């Protein structure tokens, strides 16, 4: 991981050697995916981590095109800005995009929509994802998860083998030695691949800044109709988040740190209207990114349980 600066310096920002090392590692991993698997796919949420993955994949295979499609598991509760952004990016880069909808899984009676105050479609994504993996016979799914996001993720491998049911057996993981990635699997198994495992939230933001990568507007501070609950700020627009009558709507200057399902993604107060300001804000921030995700707060072991069930 100890990468010296390449001799001819590029116009890189202040993070040079450290971000460079992470980028080199991620490119290596993406090339391993293309070489070791028959049908890989890049899981694309429209969030900053998956956008970063797309940039890394562009770099890994240039001047050839990215040799795998993108797939979006759409909860139907996405921020409209994210969907617009997704479609534009795919068009500009000439990529193949597959979309599968949680709504279809609900209509087919495979999953039941949650109701009430903390209802969210986030965990319902799992069924739709597993069905899509089976439909397309994907053997590797590339995701933007990072080990610093959450405790259970800290133990995740870079190549993480899932069984026929998409389940993660955390006690029986393959050891990962040196930088050798073992992608050998049986028919029916698939591998979840995490090229930016070793990046932190700040690393991703610094990279976006250094590379001049475009991201959806909701990551930047904007005025939004919101309401407060449990000390968190929720979007009152689009009517996706369940709101009690007595929860007062107010316009606030906010931005989102993640762009997951609207129903479980809270906003933070912010005046960071530019990428420089966002990076500065992340540096000084003392709440971890997933702190604004209600689905992890349900219980201390929330993430681990969802992962065992096949969640990304």
């Amino acid at each position, binding site marked *: 991981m100890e*990468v*010296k600066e390449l001799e001819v310096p590029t116009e890189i920002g202040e993070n040079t050697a*450290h971000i460079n090392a992470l980028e080199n590692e991620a490119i290596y991993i993406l*090339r391993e995916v293309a070489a070791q698997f028959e049908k890989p796919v890049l899981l694309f949420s429209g969030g900053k981590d998956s956008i970063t993955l797309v940039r890394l994949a562009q770099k890994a295979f240039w*001047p050839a095109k990215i040799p795998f499609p993108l797939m979006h598991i759409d909860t139907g509760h996405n921020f409209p800005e994210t969907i617009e952004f997704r479609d534009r990016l795919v068009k500009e880069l000439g990529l193949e995009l597959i979309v599968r909808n949680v709504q279809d899984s609900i209509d087919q009676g495979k999953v039941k929509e949650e109701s009430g105050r903390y209802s969210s479609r986030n965990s319902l994504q799992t069924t739709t994802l597993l069905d899509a993996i089976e439909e397309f016979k994907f053997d590797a799914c590339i995701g933007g998860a990072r080990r610093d996001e959450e405790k259970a*993720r800290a*133990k995740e491998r870079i190549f993480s083998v899932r069984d026929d049911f998409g389940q993660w057996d955390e006690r029986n993981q393959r050891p990962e*030695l040196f930088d050798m990635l073992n992608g050998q699997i049986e028919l029916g198994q698939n591998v979840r691949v995490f090229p930016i495992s070793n990046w932190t939230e700040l690393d991703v933001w610094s990279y976006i800044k250094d590379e001049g990568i475009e991201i959806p507007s909701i990551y930047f501070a904007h005025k939004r109709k919101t309401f407060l609950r449990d000390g968190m700020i929720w979007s009152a627009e689009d009517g996706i988040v369940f709101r009690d009558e007595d929860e007062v709507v107010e316009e606030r200057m906010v931005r989102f740190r993640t762009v997951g399902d609207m129903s479980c993604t809270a906003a933070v107060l912010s005046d960071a209207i530019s990428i420089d300001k966002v990076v500065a804000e992340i540096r000084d921030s003392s*709440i971890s990114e997933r702190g604004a995700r209600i689905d992890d707060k349900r219980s*201390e072991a929330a993430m681990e349980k969802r992962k065992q069930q096949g969640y990304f």
Partner: protein
Amino acid sequence: MANSIKMEVLKIATAGSVDDGKSTLIGRILYDTKSLTSDKLEAIERTSKQKGYDYLDFSLATDGLVAEREQGITIDVAHIYFSTAKKSYIIADTPGHVEYTRNMVTGASTSQAAIILIDARKGVIEQTNRHFFINNLLRIKEVVVAINKMDLVDFSEDRYNEIKDDFEKLMEKRDYADQKITFVPVSALKGDNVVNKSENTPWYKGETLLEHLEGLDLAAVSNVGTPRFPVQYVIRPKTEEHHDFRGFAGKVYGGELSVGDEVVALPSQTRSKIKDIYVYDKKYKTASRRSSVTITLEDEINLSRGDMLVKANDLPTIEKQFTATISWMDSKPLAAGNKYVVQHGVNKVLAKVDQVHHKIAPDYSGVDAEAQSLGMNDIAEVSFRLNKPIFYDKFKNHRTNGSFILIDTQSNNTVGAGFIS
């Protein structure tokens, strides 16, 4: 959290026995470097209180899996991230149980530095020998011996020196002279000499644990060898614009490669010169070690994944057999005659176990046992025959080109790690 320029990533493996306070030490580092976010700190405070502790249980910051929290032990390798103004750090938190040698080897295999924890009350125990042995086997250049729980021995200088002397006796047995060892007296629980200098150890004139890590020169702790470029993926865009482009994508190991370098392609032994080195659409003069680049050659040579480019005057060993130190990681035993896939970098070949020579006692006891087969956590010298030649260096000369993993042909699991002798 850091406000200024971060220059480097240092990966550190940790080793300690059960209850040596390894998770507490890592938690302490995170706390004192203000790397714990307020919601994580809140969770630690809440849980510590629930459990009725009268101090903060920092081990909760790192013990991730439910089973671990229930049993109060760490059972797998976890990665913890923090940064200072000088460096970014990744700590591989590996468990210290006897039965988990495999995790320690795994964690150490990607690290440049290691922290070995010793309980000041217990001193150097058999486990310590094992931890040090593995750091030696993996050729970790920089080892910090943190003598922990100094608060429980009244911060006694005599006790510290006693343990240091014992450890130094162990050092005489290693076969890796370049390794640098540093001792620090700490109390992870109370915070002495971890990040901040302790007032309880006026006799200790050295740096705190973190000060020492901060001062490490990354170039100096890396094991540099000769340049090796295993071809990972061949890039052929077949577009109008790049019709004849044929790029060899891969990572440079051991040293640098530059445009104009005379290279030999293995196994064909065809010679050519490096024409261009690309990262994305930009050309570079030199690719430094560990950089992921795309190389084009002056001549049209047929190269595919698993082949290797090396400098013309610096060929590796090209052989269909080798002997290696194996760290076995599977419950199904390794025995003579068994077949495995050897993954050497990105190259895969079929291998047959020729002979299991002897088991190595991983504690410097010097008792090498005759063995016919290897069980989980065994370490031994083993000879292999391959179905085609690979291009390797000895592990002690080349940490990447001298190592490999063994894959079970039935389960597809990674069942062992090898270090070529």
